[in-house]
Each structure stands twice: as structure tokens, then as C-alpha cells.
């Protein structure tokens, strides 16, 4: 490629990154804004005040903590259920295994609104009051598919004869699982957990149908458009983003240099 072509490609890529990062940059920037009025949407002036009181907005902090707890619980549940399914599907020839995989992938091929409608009508039909329990059930469901499929891919990637070797050396199956499979699977478990956590933490559509009076962070933010956009929203979002970036760096496997 000639010089001009390379330059053009570089500029075009910068434009793409620009579109990706515009809202991120604005969010970080506005965490340092001193807003006039209730809506931190117009730039007024620089301040560090918001960062000195990141948890000042009580309702926001409460919603933040609710989402944190929900995401941890949903991720644990999804990885437990999904991990068991992945083990069965990859370590045994299950009759109808392909159908089970199709079933796992199905929730991912439809927009969230479909799942949201189905779940709401289910809970209404069962007379199940909407709240933390229905949130946990719904979130664990959409995380389950991601967790099971991620873990199955990981399990397919390593050698089942390792477990058999451990058993040949006298380890009972569970012992072999604990000493061989689990350590090998640990990075995959962590990845599935993080993915599930972030899916649950950011979920708005399904939650808006199944939360009842419970306020998760995205639900609180949706209400904030009418009520009040405090600068603490941008502060907490920036913090979340920093932690995500850190996790992304720490959790990314050491890569081979590209060919």
C-alpha cells in the first residue's frame, strides 16, 4: 500500500475510534463539570468537587449497589448452571446434544425485547410478584447461554486424555476433575463470570419488564432523564469504566504475536 493510502486508512480508523469513544470521552469529561441546575448535560466549568463525593447521590448509590449484588448473584448462578451443562456436553456424547446447543443459542438470536415480553407474561401468569427474585431469574437466564457456550468452547479446546491419565494414575473421577479439569478451566470460568457480570450489570430491557419496584442502575439512569442527572452519574460511570479497562487488561490471555 502506498503512503497516501496508508494515511487515509489511518485517518478513517481514527474516525471509527472517534465514534466509539465520543460518548466515553464526554462521560469522563462531564464527571469534572460543575453543572448549573439539575441536569449535568451542558459544560459549565471544571471542578474536582464531584470526585470528592462520588457517593453523594444516595438513590444513585443504592441503585449501583443493587446492580452490583444482582450481577454477582446472576453471574454465579449462570456460571454454575452453564458450567455443568458445558461439562456434560463436552465430556459425554449426549443424545440430542446438538439440540441442546441450539436451545442455548436461541435466546441470543432474538432481541432482548422478545425475552422481556415472554418473561413478564410468565411472571404475571404465575402471579409471581416482580422484584429481586424475578430479576435474578431473568438475568441468570440470559447469562446462562453466554456462560455455557463460552465454557463449552474452552472445554473443547483442551485434551480430555489429561483427565483419563489422572484416573489411570489412581485418581477417582471427582479428584481428577478437581486436580486437573478445574485448574485448566479456571481462566474460562473467570471469563464467563466477567461476561455474565457485565451483561447483567448493564441490562436495561429485560430489567425494565421484570424489576417491579426494584431499581437497578440502568433503570435508575433511565428515570434520571426526567428527574435529575447528577454529576455523580458520570463519576460512577467513569469508575466503572476504569475498573472494566483494568479487568480487560488483566483478564486478557497472553497472546501469541500475530503472524
Amino acid at each position, binding site marked *: *500500500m502506498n503512503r497516501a493510502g496508508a494515511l487515509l486508512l*489511518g485517518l*478513517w480508523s481514527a*474516525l*471509527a*475510534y472517534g465514534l*466509539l469513544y*465520543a*460518548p466515553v470521552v*464526554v*462521560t469522563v469529561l*462531564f464527571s469534572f463539570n460543575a453543572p448549573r441546575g439539575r441536569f449535568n*448535560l*451542558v459544560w459549565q466549568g471544571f471542578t474536582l468537587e464531584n470526585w470528592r463525593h462520588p457517593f453523594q447521590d444516595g438513590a444513585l448509590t443504592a441503585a449501583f449497589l443493587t446492580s452490583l449484588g444482582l450481577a454477582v448473584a446472576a453471574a454465579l448462578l449462570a456460571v454454575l*448452571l452453564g458450567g455443568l451443562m458445558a461439562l*456434560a456436553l463436552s465430556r*459425554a456424547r*449426549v443424545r440430542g446434544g*446438538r439440540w*441442546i446447543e*441450539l436451545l442455548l*443459542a*436461541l*435466546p441470543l*438470536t*432474538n*432481541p*432482548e*425485547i*422478545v425475552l422481556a*415480553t*415472554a*418473561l413478564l*407474561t*410468565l411472571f*404475571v401468569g404465575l402471579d409471581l410478584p416482580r422484584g429481586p427474585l424475578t430479576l435474578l*431469574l431473568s438475568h441468570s*437466564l440470559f447469562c*446462562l447461554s*453466554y456462560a*455455557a457456550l463460552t465454557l463449552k*468452547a474452552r472445554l473443547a479446546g483442551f485434551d*480430555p486424555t489429561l483427565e483419563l491419565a489422572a484416573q489411570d494414575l489412581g485418581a477417582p473421577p471427582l479428584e481428577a476433575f478437581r486436580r486437573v479439569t478445574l485448574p485448566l478451566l479456571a481462566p474460562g470460568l473467570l*471469563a464467563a463470570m466477567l461476561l455474565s457480570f457485565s451483561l447483567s450489570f*448493564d441490562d*436495561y*430491557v429485560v430489567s*425494565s419488564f421484570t424489576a417491579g419496584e426494584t431499581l437497578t442502575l440502568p433503570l435508575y*439512569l433511565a428515570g434520571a*432523564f426526567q428527574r435529575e442527572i447528577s454529576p455523580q452519574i*458520570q463519576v460512577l*460511570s467513569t469508575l*466503572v*469504566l476504569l475498573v*472494566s*479497562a483494568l479487568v*480487560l487488561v488483566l483478564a*486478557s490471555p497472553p497472546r501469541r504475536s*500475530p*503472524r
Partner: protein
Amino acid sequence: MPRSLRAEARRPRWPWLLLTPGLLWLLGLYVLPLLGLVPLSLSEPLSRFGLDTVFTGRVANYSEVLQAYGPILLRSFSFAAIATAVGLVLAYPLAFAIRFRGGRWQPLLIGLVVLPSLSSFLVRAIAWTSLLGDNGPVLGLVESLGLTDGLNGLGVLRDGRLLNTPTAVIIGLTNTLLPFLVLPLVVAMQRIDPRLLEAAADLHAGPLRRFIRVVWPLSLPGLGAGLLLSLIPAAGDVVNPRFLGGPNDRMIANAIDNLLLVQLQAPRAAALTLVLTALITVAVGLQLRGRGLEELPLP
């Protein structure tokens, strides 16, 4: 595989013990409620004040929602198509640059594509509200370039405004779907054997010819996957049309939301949801035709 290993791999009962809890979850919380939408879509509300319904076999729900929401359905798919097209114009060169110009920075460049999607949809919508607002920097730039009237004429702006217009919705959608276009494309391009390009060069194919004859055809699976991954969520998006669009820019998911939660018309909401599901299942089926599930680019 030796006989003993194969016997070991075929033990009868324990797999089902491990599968049962997850299958119960999938059946109870996904399959059954989804199937339950079918009778619900043929029912009538018992009252105007609750979600209780009675089954009456009312097929007219379908013709009514198609008539009332057909235009919104069409709008949803056109918004999604426009956003995907814009996204593709940005994503393809970016993926190409990451793969063929990224060098040892490739993992970092890929990570930078992923990172923004870890910030919440709602937080990004708030940021777009600042950026695209009446006193925001984007309109300021447009004005200082003297483009306001031209863009008004083209329908990109509405009365000199950007927020609460289809343009704002499409900008928001493009932002959210961009990583889902870029990543499968990068993966597909990473699978291209560099020796193919060397061979093409040895045979005196120039850069353009190498692109057209080698890179482009081999990147098509990634393109297909990316289209699937971005069109479907975009067509069913809730946040961007609701918070960045005006009242006339609502999309299908907003209509379902409104039918169910505001108008309490559960049967019609169910009918509309099933129409959407059917359309998307057909699209997915066409895309995956002749190929396995492995082609679904899952994490």
C-alpha cells in the same frame, strides 16, 4: 481413539444429571413463556386496568397490530439497516487496518474496540444527549461550517435540531453496533493465511488485486456474522430511539414496551413480539442456511 477411551467417554447417566438444572432454566424461563405468547396473542384483555386476559382465539389481534405497527416495524428495520451500513463503512477499513497494519499492537487495538461497549447503554445515551443537544458541540461545529441549511434540506437535521431526530437515533445505534461488526471481521481476517497473500504477490498481483481476490472473499464469513450480530439487536433496540429520538422515531421494541406496560394490551404485545420473532428467525435462518451453529460468532 483406543477402545478404552471411547468406552470412558460414553457413560450413560451423569451427563443428564449435570444438564438437568440448566435445561429446567431454559425450558421454564425461555421456551415455555415464549410458547405461551402464542395463546396469549389470541386472547383478549379482561379489563383495561390489568394484564389479565381470557383466551378467545382472536386472530384479529395480528391484523390489527400489523396495520397499526407495520410502519414502525418498517422504520425499525430501515433504521437498523442504515446504522449497519454506516457502521460497515467504518468497521471494514478499521478491521483491515487492525489486522494488516496493527502489527504487535493488534491485541491493544482490539481491546480498544471492546472497551466502550463495557459502558452502559444508558450512560452513553446521556453522553449523546450532551453531544447532540441544541447547544452541544456537534451542532456548534455544523453551524460554524455553515452546513445547517444544507443538512436541514437533506433531512439530516430537523429545524436545525439534532437531538430527537432519526439522525440521533442512527448515530446512537451505529455507536453500539460498531464493535459487533469489527470483531468478527478481524477474526475472519486473522484466519487468512499470510502465505496466500505472499503467493498472490509472487504471482504479481498488486495490492488492490490481492485485496479483491484474497482478503475480500475470505472476510465474507466475518461480514455475515457481523451483519447478524448488529442488525438484530439494532432492529430491536430500546434505549437509542427512546432517549435520542423524538416521538415519531420510536422503534418496534418501544411499541411493544408501550403496548404491554402502558396500554396493558398484553395480547397485542404478544402478537407483535411474535411477528418480530418470526421475521428475525427467518433472517437468521437465511443467514445460517447450509451452515452449522458454529458460524454463530459467540464469545
